[in-house]
């Protein structure tokens, strides 16, 4: 009797796996962890059009929530509540051409931002406008992108455009406002060389931000600092100089090679350079600082895609951020000549990891181990803050078809970052108390250990005799910080697929 039960159990398990493997739907194709070896390649629009086979479109209404008991990075706030509406589509036109696009609108609130009155902190730091008071801000983002790819014999060609318009503002003092326009254009090509597909793409970016802070209550005016890195500021133009803009952009080159038959070694190389100039609007656009972000990334891996999916890969990312300060001369009718330009800020970020992916049609597991080192230096008076971590990450995903019209996707992840080394060198005796507190806060979180875990579930329901479907998704996660703080995150969305 027990043998019968065991046989039935095995048959049921095989049946579930078979049903799930038949669920090689567009959703699986577009959301599977199995895409990891191709994640870099899809930045090349020519290859993006070739990566997926099935058409897939989705309209989603969702919300992202995050809360930190104390802001890990004060300039980015202690959390957010960001509802959004997003539609994206990928549509093969015929056997040769593909179009894809995305449009989204997001609006919400970012909580308790301090020491930052500028939008796009990750992009522009440390050259931001800042004050000690801060507060909640409203964020509104419009984003639209579209691409086209086609293949002619052994050649693939593609183009893609992405536009982001964003504004952030605060409706109480200090009333910061940042208005961002960000345009990226990519052109790519690919060629089938024997059993390999090689690709090259070039990407150009134009970035602008107008940034200002206003005070409506005269007695509540506080200084706005032109930050220059690691708790330093450009004193001459700090205080009441609260209107500036950023002018920037850059280029990127991406190279890719992978086997056409889905099995064999693959490689990606990305080189990019972006620069951002901060200028004072009220002094004839006097340039204050220039920030240069240079990045090189390389991946080498080997993948096998048959009944099961296997990939092993190594990746290294190096980013150098160089900050030049313009030295203003004597003023003449609100015009300040630039008499010198000095490299005062230097930052190096190295992120390197090795990973493996194993999966079948209805599940994937990805494990990664790596090392990340961040080093920041302000040349004179000398300041330095370094921190490095070793980390491990584990991700799992499975697709379950509990009933004929239902598809359930479950994702789980966990990671641990352990501090490997740290260094802090600051002229604390000569620093203002507020700046000292900022540096101590940032250092505390830079050298902490982090444990992160979370899960996400998505249910898709196919409507009767229709290409339309409904879905609901919910996920959450928690990050525990060894500095006795933690972060909770929640994500929910509903929508239709078509």
């Amino acid at each position, binding site marked *: 009797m027990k043998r019968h039960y065991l046989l039935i159990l095995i048959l049921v398990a095989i049946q579930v796996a078979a049903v799930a493997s038949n669920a090689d739907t567009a959703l699986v194709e577009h959301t599977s962890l199995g895409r990891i070896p191709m994640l870099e390649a899809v930045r090349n629009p020519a290859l993006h059009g070739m990566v997926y086979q099935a058409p897939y479109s989705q309209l989603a209404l969702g919300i992202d929530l995050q809360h930190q008991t104390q802001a890990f990075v004060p300039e980015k706030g202690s959390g957010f509540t960001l509802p959004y509406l997003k539609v994206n589509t990928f549509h093969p036109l015929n056997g040769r051409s593909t179009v894809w696009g995305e449009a989204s609108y997001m609006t919400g609130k970012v909580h308790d931002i301090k020491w930052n009155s500028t939008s796009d902190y990750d992009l522009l730091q440390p050259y931001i406008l800042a004050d000690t008071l801060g507060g909640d801000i409203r964020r509104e983002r419009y984003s639209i992108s579209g691409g086209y790819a086609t293949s002619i014999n052994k050649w693939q060609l593609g183009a893609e455009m992405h536009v982001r318009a964003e504004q952030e503002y605060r409706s109480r003092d200090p009333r910061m406002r940042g208005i961002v326009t960000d345009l990226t254009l990519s052109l790519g090509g690919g060629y089938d060389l024997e059993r390999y597909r090689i690709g090259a793409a070039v990407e150009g970016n134009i970035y602008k931000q107008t940034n200002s802070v206003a005070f409506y209550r005269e007695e509540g005016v506080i200084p706005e600092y032109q930050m220059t890195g690691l708790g330093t500021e450009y004193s001459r133009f700090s205080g009441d100089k609260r209107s500036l803009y950023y002018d920037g952009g850059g280029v990127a080159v991406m190279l890719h090679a992978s086997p056409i038959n889905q099995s064999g070694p693959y490689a990606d190389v990305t080189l990019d350079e972006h620069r951002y100039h901060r200028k004072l609007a009220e002094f004839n656009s006097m340039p204050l600082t220039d920030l240069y972000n240079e990045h090189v990334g390389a991946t080498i891996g080997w993948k096998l895609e048959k009944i099961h999916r296997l990939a092993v890969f190594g990746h290294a990312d190096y980013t150098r951020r160089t900050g030049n300060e313009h030295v203003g001369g004597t003023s003449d009718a609100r015009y300040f000549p630039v008499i010198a330009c000095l490299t005062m800020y230097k930052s190096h970020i190295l992120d390197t990891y090795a990973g493996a992916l194993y999966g079948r049609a209805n599940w994937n597991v990805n494990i990664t181990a790596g090392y990340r080192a961040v080093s920041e230096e302000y040349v*004179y*008076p000398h300041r330095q803050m370094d921190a490095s971590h070793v980390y491990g990450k584990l991700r799992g995903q499975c697709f379950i078809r509990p009933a004929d019209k239902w598809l359930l996707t479950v994702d789980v992840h966990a990671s641990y970052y352990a501090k490997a080394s740290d260094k802090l060198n600051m002229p604390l005796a000569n620093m203002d108390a507020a700046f000292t507190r900022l540096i101590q806060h940032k250092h505390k979180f830079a050298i902490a250990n982090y444990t992160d875990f979370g899960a996400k579930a998505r249910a898709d329901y196919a409507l009767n005799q229709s290409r339309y479907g409904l879905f609901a998704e919910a996920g959450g996660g928690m990050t525990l910080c060894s500095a006795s703080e933690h972060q909770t995150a929640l994500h929910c969305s509903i929508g239709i697929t078509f």
Partner: protein
Amino acid sequence: MLFTACAPVEDDIFTTACITVTAEGNESITSVQAQVKLTNVNTRQVTTVADFNGTSVTVELLRGAYQIDIEGVATCQSPGNSIRMRQFRCQSDYEEFISRDINEVTLKTIFLD
């Protein structure tokens, strides 16, 4: 295009300033004992130096624009070779120390007696 677009790095950020104190009129200054306060106009960073060699003092600074304040005592020699100690101060609102070589500045004294 990418490789020609690398960040222009200017690591040569320091320079040497040589400040000399002179007197107006018939008297000449033979030696100085004074404190020189140099305030960087842009960073507001203050550098203080007092080791005069005769009537000049040399200091290494961040390249930039400076405000200079000097206050101290000078040994003055008159045309009749009489020597006396006089209190003085010098001041300049704006001096550029930009050159990678030595930047020389001469300031005239204001005697306080």
